């Protein structure tokens, strides 16, 4: 699993454990019903719950929004790769062999329908992806650290041969 996938897994598992525990507590609480009416208090506390939720979501927003993949620059030392998606093949055109440690700028465009450029590392783990559509170039910047054979899979449904739209490229040690 990639670094991001590990973060998602850990966070989701913790959230699910907490959620399941609360669900079970509520389920079990009906065994000892309360005849006194406390709904007034609980209703008022809903405002507190709203504040907690707003703060939690704001924290998550601030913690993640700076990691958007948009507008990244490959810098002057970049290696450029032209990627063309067609039903149902990838043409990956690198003028010289790609090496690790130097940013790679993929310039991707589709000839027909929308495709998804999903790159899997030599261990076959998904490391990044972006949509590739006709009419405009999509730029994706990535610096490879691991040499080897990378697999490209189409990650946007593009028709009957979608699952056959697989290609590969090699990254060498710098």
């Amino acid at each position: 699993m990639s670094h991001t996938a590990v973060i998602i897994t850990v966070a989701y598992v913790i959230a699910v454990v907490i959620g399941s525990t609360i669900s079970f507590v509520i389920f079990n609480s009906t065994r000892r019903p309360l005849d006194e009416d406390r709904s007034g208090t609980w209703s008022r506390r809903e405002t507190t719950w709203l504040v907690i939720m707003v703060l939690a979501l704001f924290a998550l927003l601030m913690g993640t929004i700076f990691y958007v993949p948009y507008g990244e620059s490959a810098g002057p030392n970049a290696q450029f790769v032209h990627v063309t998606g067609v039903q149902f093949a990838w043409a990956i055109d690198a003028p010289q062999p790609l090496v690790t440690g130097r940013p790679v700028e993929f310039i991707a465009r589709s000839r027909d329908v929308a495709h998804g450029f999903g790159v899997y590392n030599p261990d076959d783990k998904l490391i990044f992806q972006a949509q590739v559509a006709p009419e405009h170039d999509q730029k994706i910047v990535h610096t490879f650290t691991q040499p080897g054979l990378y697999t490209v899979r189409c990650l946007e449904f593009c028709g009957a041969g979608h699952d056959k739209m697989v290609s590969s490229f090699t990254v060498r040690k710098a």
Partner: protein
Amino acid sequence: MDDRSIAIARKLTISYITASTAILAASGLLGVILRWSQAVPQARVGDNFWYALMTAHGLGAFVGWAGFAVMGLAFWVLAGVGFPVHGFGLAMARLSWWLMVLGVLGVIVTTIFMGFGASWVFLYPLPFYASGNWGAWATGLFSFSVLLAGLAIVTWCFAILHTVTNREALHSVSESIGKRLGLSFGWGFLMPRTFATNPKPVPYPVIPLAVIGFDMIIATLPLAGLLIWQILQSMGLVGTANVLLAKNILWWFGHPVVYLLLFPAVAVYYWLIPRYAGRDLVAGNVIAIAWTVAVIANVLVWAHHLYLDYPSGTVQAQINTAMQPITFALVLPSALSLYSLAFTIYRSRFRWTPASTALFFGLVGWLLAGLSGVVNATIAFDVQVHNTLWVVGHFHHMAMLNIGLLIFGAVYALLPELSGKALYSEKLGWMHVWTTFVAGMIVFGIWLVQGLDGAPRRWAVLPSQFDTLTRISLVFVFLLAGAQALFFWNVLQTLRGKGGVATFDERGIPEPSKKSSKEWSVHAAEGALVLVVLLLAAAFAVGGYLVGREHGKGGGGAVTTTQTSTGGGGVTGKAEAGKAVFASAGCGGCHTLAAAGASGNVGPNFDTVKPAAALVLARVTNGKGAMPSFKGRLTAQQIADVAAYVSQSAGK
């Protein structure tokens, strides 16, 4: 509410529930075939047929079953809180039923019989790039069918808005329709001087219905425009539309349509959970704030489906970034509703029946779906899970374990009062509800795990490293499907009157059938649990056998792939046949060949290079540089044909 209004609402709801349940049976079966085909090489269906089935399953289960069912339940809920459907609203509700049924039939015909397989999002311009699998007719008819379903949604919205602005039911003194709509949005709680000019506050279940009735009109109309464009384009009357704009329009509808399922479902929860808990909904005025946020945010989150589209020279990246906080805001109505419903149940004298257990599990499913949804909503995380099976796991949690269980719970709770007949068997109900929840958790949980591992979504045949989990999951898919058979049987027997006449307790909760009093009642839950565990054990055993069998073969499925000879060994190419291969394999996307009308400029220009057949054969078979290998994708004969065609027609 007079008897006539109740009879009208009853008839409406029964007609919606009956039609949607039939659609569930059909589309659920398609879902089983899809996973079966992925898991078992011997059961594999043709690639385009798989995608056509996927298109039918998606639209059928999501809109035709879950959406259609909650749309019908809405009328009964509204009648229950004193809002009769009448006049214009009734005409719209009846029209909506017919439009939806015709739309779903059209989708079934165009996908299963005409091969339209562009998925339920029919991402423009894919409907017009069929690679020979369906024709312009199929695209036009499919677009028309979806347009009918879209119009069904719009007419339903009119029915709902007409009903929730009923002056008498609102106890409103205002003539202004805007003020009455504001009252239905819950603004009387927030601004009593302006809106609550009535003696009674609006019942909570009305609020989510008013919100979605308003939003879906805004969300659906642009899609209708796109669909009309597609119909015209399929007839050759207009040219190509802007691809990025089309995608934005699709999701402008595609996200709110999820809430066409959720918000009416929330109305049902607001109405039924208090009945089973024996106390009023625990809700502060603050819940009106959440729903006000929902009215606005719901139509402003579409681009979170385009997080990974940020092409140069467009403002898409900026729009996408703005969508993350707006999507987070849309968490609030769910968070507050779950709080209210949880405290309504907490330490109440809750009556546990198959109906209320399904509703409770539905709330758990809602929570789980919400948590995985927050991951999708976060751009930095979406990069990892976008278009992987994680997303499939997320929306099945939502559609099946939240909305689906709510529909089952509502049917068990309401069928006796709708039909006057007692539920045929509580025991079958228990088994159905528990098995659906447990098997569903496993099937959909496996998708989450596979997605985190990078398994691509919408692949007829998954990369082989995912086979083991897919095969294990198949066993639980069968269990899930089998449980639904119990549901259909139970409903059918109930409607045939096999459970006798319905009776209700002091809260309006249906009592178990007197006819089948020999059933377990006290130990029903425990009995069902034992059964589920036994079934799970059996399921694991079969799964283990399947996995073990594969390993016994020395790894990997025994899928036969076509071997291609590289030296032209014995296969003679036919240029006439090669022309079709050239077109269908997408060669023209990269290469220029005047004879084929191809003008690609990524790879070598055949008209200038004039390659020999042997060279084409070698390159197509093994690939080189940017040129991908087509070995395994094309047969030896096809490669020989295309080589003959290219060498003979280049430069002509």
